[in-house]
């Protein structure tokens, strides 16, 4: 654990003059599950996209698994974007084949196992699946890469509680001990019990961060209440 899995210093990003990230600093070690929390517009998605190497034109210093975001880091980072990125006409097997062509570290057998673990149908196209089912397909694909860093942007938004629990178990059961997982959400209670650290973003910078149990101990509240409190002030 000599180099942090993610090291960000003074990161700034603007869209047409409007700042989305303002001098953000962040250092995250390997072997953790980190909740990236914040309201809509706080910069969560922008930060994840920069870390994933899909967004350029930013200022500051960013290292992901030791690399500046680019082809080398992308080979080590599994990014699950907020929006659906798979063709509607795909069945699960088509998407698995696609990932197999694209990513050297993709484990197709593991993906098939996860599709079965989630109880997803093999004979339906994505278009014929519910929102929750599509999320599960995408999570199966993202978690089946043998990556060093996983970046999941709102992976459980808008799914029912039963699906949420199954998804969280799918994530927990398929994460290597020495990988870093960053999961963004605006509903902390969804991930409250699986994160070991949290980062609260507000207006493009870090408002508060720390180990989950330390924050509970210090403030005597759940992360969810703490989040509401710090955002209100």
């Amino acid at each position, binding site marked *: 654990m000599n180099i942090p899995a993610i090291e960000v210093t003074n990161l700034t990003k603007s869209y047409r003059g409007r700042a989305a990230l303002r001098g953000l600093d962040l250092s995250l070690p390997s*072997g*953790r*599950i980190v909740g990236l929390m914040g309201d809509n517009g706080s910069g969560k998605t922008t930060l994840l996209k920069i870390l994933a190497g899909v967004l350029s034109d930013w200022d500051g210093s960013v290292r992901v698994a030791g690399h500046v975001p680019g082809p080398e880091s992308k080979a080590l980072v599994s990014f699950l974007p907020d929006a659906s990125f798979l063709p509607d006409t795909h069945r699960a097997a088509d998407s698995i084949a696609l990932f197999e062509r694209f990513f050297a570290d993709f484990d197709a057998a593991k993906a098939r196992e996860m599709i079965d673990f989630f109880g997803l149908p093999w004979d339906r196209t994505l278009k014929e699946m519910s929102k929750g089912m599509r999320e599960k397909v995408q999570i199966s694909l993202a978690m089946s890469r043998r990556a060093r860093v996983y970046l999941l942007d709102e992976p459980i938004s808008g799914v029912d509680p039963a699906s949420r*629990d199954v998804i*969280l*178990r799918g994530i*927990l*059961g398929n994460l290597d*001990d020495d990988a870093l997982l960053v999961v963004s959400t605006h509903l902390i*209670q969804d991930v*409250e*019990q*699986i*994160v*070991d650290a949290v980062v609260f973003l507000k207006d493009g910078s870090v408002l508060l961060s720390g180990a*989950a*149990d*330390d924050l*509970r*101990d210090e403030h*005597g*509240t*759940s*992360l*969810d*209440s703490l989040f509401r409190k710090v955002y209100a002030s």
Partner: protein
Amino acid sequence: MQIDDARPIWAQLVDEFRRRIAVGDWRPGQKVPAVRELALELGVNPNTVQKSLAEVDRLGLTTTERTAGRFVTRTTAAIDEARAVLAATTADGFAAAAAGLGMSLDEATALLAQRWNSRKEDR
């Protein structure tokens, strides 16, 4: 187990693992389930489970052997103590609640004896 999000989870897991050993869910000499298995069962972070198990080691209720894994102690004194702590905590809860209702020790004791007997009849 029901997790309270307002308190550190690792401490709640320590209580849960002590309870399992005290009541014999985990028997003396039995291998403790793997960290990942417990994390999945309880739906919590594996590092948190690891931290809790290290504390249960420190309490002398489990021992870790470098190659074989982690086992529940065979030392009955340690398990008896865990059971005594669990029983005392439960008794404290009852005592506080009974006192809060304005009961005397005699009344509380009589009530406990009465409920104790009706519990036997239920079975």
